[in-house]
């Protein structure tokens, strides 16, 4: 075996090791990223699966106990065309039957600054017994900036965290 082949084999082993690491990590850590109405189409199939769900906090449903840090609210679909995130805006055909679907969400922890009634949020966790148990709660920027979406830099106003 020439040295070149040895090194080729060595490099191949490293490449395979990296690929295997990626493969197993993807299998064990990935989550479906869905909008609320995509979820509402087939909730049964997604029960117990790791999910990342984009939706809107249904107005008047927020219950928060500052002593225990327990939060509960209902998540509803974001009306088409209003979403603050790309995912949310991706909503295909508006289905009137699904527009009113809601999902109770439970979370324990400090509320993000931008969390409020009617805000668009992303929750990460699993559905168990018809309730979404969120491990993470992320707020997306308020949809009021969406008025001028097609302007090339409407996005700039939402340039929230980092230019770059």
């Amino acid at each position: 075996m020439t040295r070149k082949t040895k090194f080729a084999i060595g490099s191949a082993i490293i490449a395979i090791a990296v690929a295997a690491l990626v493969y197993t990590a993807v299998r064990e850590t990935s989550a479906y990223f869905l909008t609320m109405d995509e979820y509402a189409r087939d909730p049964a199939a997604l029960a117990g699966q790791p999910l990342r769900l984009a939706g809107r906090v249904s107005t008047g449903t927020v219950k928060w106990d500052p002593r225990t840090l327990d939060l509960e609210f209902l998540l509803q679909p974001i009306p088409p065309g209003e979403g603050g995130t790309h995912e949310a805006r991706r909503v295909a055909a508006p289905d009137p039957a699904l527009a009113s679907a809601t999902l109770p969400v439970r979370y324990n922890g400090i509320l993000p600054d931008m969390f409020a009634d009617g805000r668009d949020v992303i929750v990460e966790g699993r559905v168990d017994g018809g309730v979404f148990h969120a491990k993470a709660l992320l707020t997306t920027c308020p949809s009021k900036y969406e008025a001028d979406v097609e302007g090339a830099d409407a996005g700039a106003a939402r340039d929230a965290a980092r230019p770059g």
Partner: protein
Amino acid sequence: MTEIGRLAIVLGWIVALWGIAASVAGALRRDRTLIASGSHAAFAFSAATGIAVAALLDLLVTRDFNVEYVAAYSSSTLPLWYTIAALWGGMKGSLLWWTFILAVCNAIVQVQNRRKNRDQMPWVTATMLAVGAFFLSLLVFVTDPFERLPFTPAEGSDLNPLLQNYWMTIHPPSLYVGYVTTTVPFAFAIAALATGKLGDAWIRTTRRWAIFSWFFLTLGNLFGAAWAYVVLGWGGYWAWDPVENAAFMPWLTATAFLHSVMIQEKKDMLKVWNMVLVILTFALTIFGTFLTRSGVISSVHSFTQSGLGPFFMGFLLVILAVSIGLLVWRLPLLKSRSELESVFSREAAFLLNNLVLVGIAFTVFWGTVFPVLSEWVRGVKITVGPPFFNRVNAPLALVLVFLMGVGPIIAWRRATWRSLRRSFLAPLAAGVVAGAATLLFASGANFYAAVAFSVAAFALATVASEFWRGVRVRREMMGEAPWTALSRLIGKNRRRYGGYIVHVGTAMVFIGIVASSIFKVEVQKSLAVGQSVDVAGYALRYDGIKANEDAHVARTAAVVSVFERRGDELVRVGTVEPEKRFYKKPKQPTTEVSIWSTLGADLYVVLGSYDPETRTAVFQAFLNPLISWMWIGGVVMALGTGICMWPSYAERTATADARVPVGSRAAP
């Protein structure tokens, strides 16, 4: 002022196009006048973009809210310093700023090379101007920073409060300088491919630029982490968000390049690989901009959807097509004259380090684009989060830090068992001791922590042994005092020992990351005034609330005493004042964390919420062990890189040598 700015960017764009055409035509027809004209265009381009930046700055500082950009990113009450920072607070401004930095680099390159690399220079000029022209064309045709509104708002909507932070004023400029300066090695690589002069002249010329670029990429990433840490309030500094990954990937490939380039210099190997790394690094900076500007991949803390995505994608494809085309065309000229001889050699260690670095870059890339890929392939959007990146990169990082220890002390060509034993015995022992100590003394330590501290100690020990050996030799040979020997040792081999100091900094950053991830403690509690909560060896007592307000922002701060447990008693060591803020112009609440920082650990306190009636407050506190090591390690890395960049006597003569026309020293 908007007219001046607008005129400047339009003229700059035209000048850039002329410069590209003149340089390419001049190179092809060997026309000195045209080449000189292309070079002059590079200077004119810097002047034009400089005027445009000055114009936008003037509009910001005079608070002309009739200008859309000024109204969107500043307000009448925004402090002057942040008003200046608003220049890169939004997309249009940051594109302009980016173009300006590039133009300045181009001018510097012109001055540096006025008497050398004359064959390559027109191609360098053309490449850099082409990149500049692309950025400027976005501003000229797509998104005008000098756009006026049909009316004048009484007040601007203010800079995003999250950006009103000192780290944010230096993070984007550093990162941009790092990003932009990757263009210089890229331009010289393209010039080398175009002219067929593929010797190591282009590498020598751009070596310092590559280190300079790496210096700012490193700082940019660390400043960004520091910003996330003090501003975002979740207790960490890195969330593997696409925006962060975009800045991290070019750093990885640039790091790989800085190492593999040494193999090319010393052994004339890896020529194609180095070309690929230079191209990849530059392409990744453009890809990063594409990621953050297109909205293709959603990022939690940056919703920068703009219409610019397709432009960046197109530009990226052009870059890749041109570079790969040139590379394939010149492949026969890039044959290496020597080969790897042994697996136990410095060459092999460096090659392995390169594979791991590029492997990490690949996994980061894969994880970042995975949602898009899965949607294309399977029709379902599947995301991977921080657990994916941590799981994949933790073992790779361990290998990398281990190699960081091996690289500097293993022999070139072929290491013998004797030399291996002599150089590695002490560092390996240090590693084993550190690993065992972690398992024995650190509560909550797991296998990962032990291995991590073990490899870090090993890497630090190899550097220490190198310094020790060098100092001892100088003391024996020259009879110098220890400190004189040390400073002369570094001074005479700046690149080598500067590099070792960078390794020390990297190991410190690594230790900080490992300790603060594995041994992190988190506590959440609702407290009435006077109540306390324990946080792993510390206690926090909520003493009350104080509020103040000005025209710009209203603040509500909780006064919290910090106690440290020493033996059986609690000793009051200080106060933290986490805040809730309300920024009045954008009507946005924010949370301002307060950190009690020591070398051993940070106590990171967040005021979660506050009830004015009962005066009850909810606190979240994190104990982040050894996190200061990260920041100190960053300073050490910067220091080491500075030593590397400082020109040495040998390098100054090497530069003079390079000025001799190539033809005159050929012919054996």
